[in-house]
């Protein structure tokens, strides 16, 4: 791994042919991804490599296309151009039926959990098991309870999502994403709308799950405190491209003005020769990037 911060912008153009699509090191590889909505160009050639088993956080301001990029990973959106290889397989040309096969490698935690509000917590978490396995009702019940307990959720199986707090909903969403033991977990702004304590709990959860299961985690976030706390690799999406990728230390040391501005404004890093993260709980109370 390079010790230097890597500037990706424009550098990888024309290198598609050289990409090792089936790599042991990288589980997801993206090259030249572009997407427009009408006249508005959101992604302008995204190149990204996500390492197997690591927590890779994609940062960027609101409206930079983070969610759009994530939706492309699971085939929820089709790009105008570019490639996305998941375990060496290009998912861009796949049809709905083939995509469903690839999607079973993924679990996704949505920004507001996206729990089915007409189903109870137990039915929500059991949903993927009922859809994709032939397990008996009692086996499913046991697996769901175990999964919920492992995330610190007890005696809420019969409750409906509307009866839960934001943090609990996220944990139920995570339980649902994890129940089929995916290889890749996608998190869409997992700490948005949470108080500092709940934010730290979610961070710990992401880190613990990554450690325990070896799952590859892709997180999109604008919460720099959380990002520096848990990331193995950080990429910054800026003006529709991955402007920079590096380890947290490399990002903190970056000289690129928009990276410095983004990190500085988040209040997590002081740039006067001091790269130390500020106190976690204080950071999360004021997050200028939050809507």
């Amino acid at each position, binding site marked *: 791994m390079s010790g230097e911060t890597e500037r990706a912008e424009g550098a990888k153009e024309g290198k598609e042919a050289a990409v090792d699509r089936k790599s042991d090191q990288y589980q997801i590889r993206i090259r030249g991804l572009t997407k427009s909505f009408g006249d508005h160009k959101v992604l302008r050639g995204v190149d990204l490599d996500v390492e197997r088993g690591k927590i890779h956080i994609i940062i960027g301001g609101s409206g930079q296309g983070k969610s759009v990029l994530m939706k492309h990973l699971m085939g929820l959106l089709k790009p105008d151009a570019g490639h996305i290889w998941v375990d060496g397989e290009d998912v861009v040309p796949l049809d*709905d*039926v083939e995509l*469903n096969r690839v999607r079973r490698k993924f679990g996704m935690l*949505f920004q507001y959990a*996206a*729990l089915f509000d007409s189903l109870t917590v137990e039915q929500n978490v059991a949903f993927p098991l009922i*859809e994709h396995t032939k397990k008996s009702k009692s086996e499913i019940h046991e697996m769901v309870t175990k999964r919920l307990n492992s995330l610190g959720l007890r005696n809420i199986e019969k409750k409906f999502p509307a009866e839960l707090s934001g943090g609990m909903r996220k944990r139920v969403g995570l339980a*649902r994403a994890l129940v089929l033991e995916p290889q890749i977990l996608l998190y869409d702004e997992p700490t948005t709308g949470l108080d500092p304590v709940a934010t730290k709990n979610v961070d710990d959860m992401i880190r613990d799950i990554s450690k325990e299961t070896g799952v590859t985690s892709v997180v999109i976030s604008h919460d720099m405190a959380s990002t520096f706390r848990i990331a193995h690799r950080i990429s910054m999406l800026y003006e529709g491209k991955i402007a920079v990728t590096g380890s947290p230390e490399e990002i903190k040391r970056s000289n690129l003005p928009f990276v410095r501005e983004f990190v500085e404004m988040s209040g997590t890093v002081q740039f006067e020769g001091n790269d130390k993260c500020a106190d976690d709980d204080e950071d999360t109370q004021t997050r200028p990037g939050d809507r």
Partner: protein
Amino acid sequence: MATTPGGLMSGPDAADEPAPPRGAWDRVVDLNDRLWAFPTRGIEEVGKHVMLFGASVRWLFKRPFRIGVLVEAMDYIGVQSILIVGMIGLFVGMVFALQLVSALRTFGTEGFVGATLGIAVTRELSPVFTSIVVAARAGAGMATELGSMRITEQIDALSTMAVNPIQYLVTPRVLAGTIMVPLMSIFFVIMAMTGGYGVAVFIEHVDPGVFMENLRWLVDTKDLIQGLTKATVFGTALTVISCAQGFNASGGAKGVGIGTTRAVVGSFVTILVLDYFLTDIILVLQNK
């Protein structure tokens, strides 16, 4: 975004530069665009509905078959609408009988009230009223439910769990509407004829034998088939419209509200427009 020193200078690119005066040609182009916007949007909307209908039919024949969701949708669209359809059927039959007896008595032909009511109810009133009731009750409900699921990313969540949302959410509802609306319209016919018979015979003292004889003489299975064909098409149309409006909702709670309104208004207009053309086609076919 970096600012350039030139950004403060006045020049052709300056933001505060007044727009050049618009010529007559520009206004013609504008008017042309506006005139075409309405039909273009209309064609787009129809296209969206046809594509969703096509996709829901395609997914109907792919595994897994979602019997549980279908039964739930049939319950919501059909069983839970029985009371209101029955009530409306009963009173429509009663008021029609009252009006018909009053009109026919002028010519001394009130004995034909059963036949006249039978033809009106089986051919027109039952499919149209039943569909409108279902569109207002279940159609609005479906549009709101799917719209809320769309804006809270629940539909995306289904996709991420490798479940096709059209197969899971749209196909069972469209199939349920196609099955249940004609069944409900039969129930409407029974209730309307019962109400009409009650008013004609017990209140207006029309001879029950004449009422039934004329009914049997003038109303046959062709009329029932006409009504059921229309109810089947209306059932499909209203569920496709309601699901499409919910499925394609955007823009938060307001978007869901707009989708629901469009679902109900769109269903009503479509039912009445389709009614005319279907009647024309069926009458031509039946009179061949």
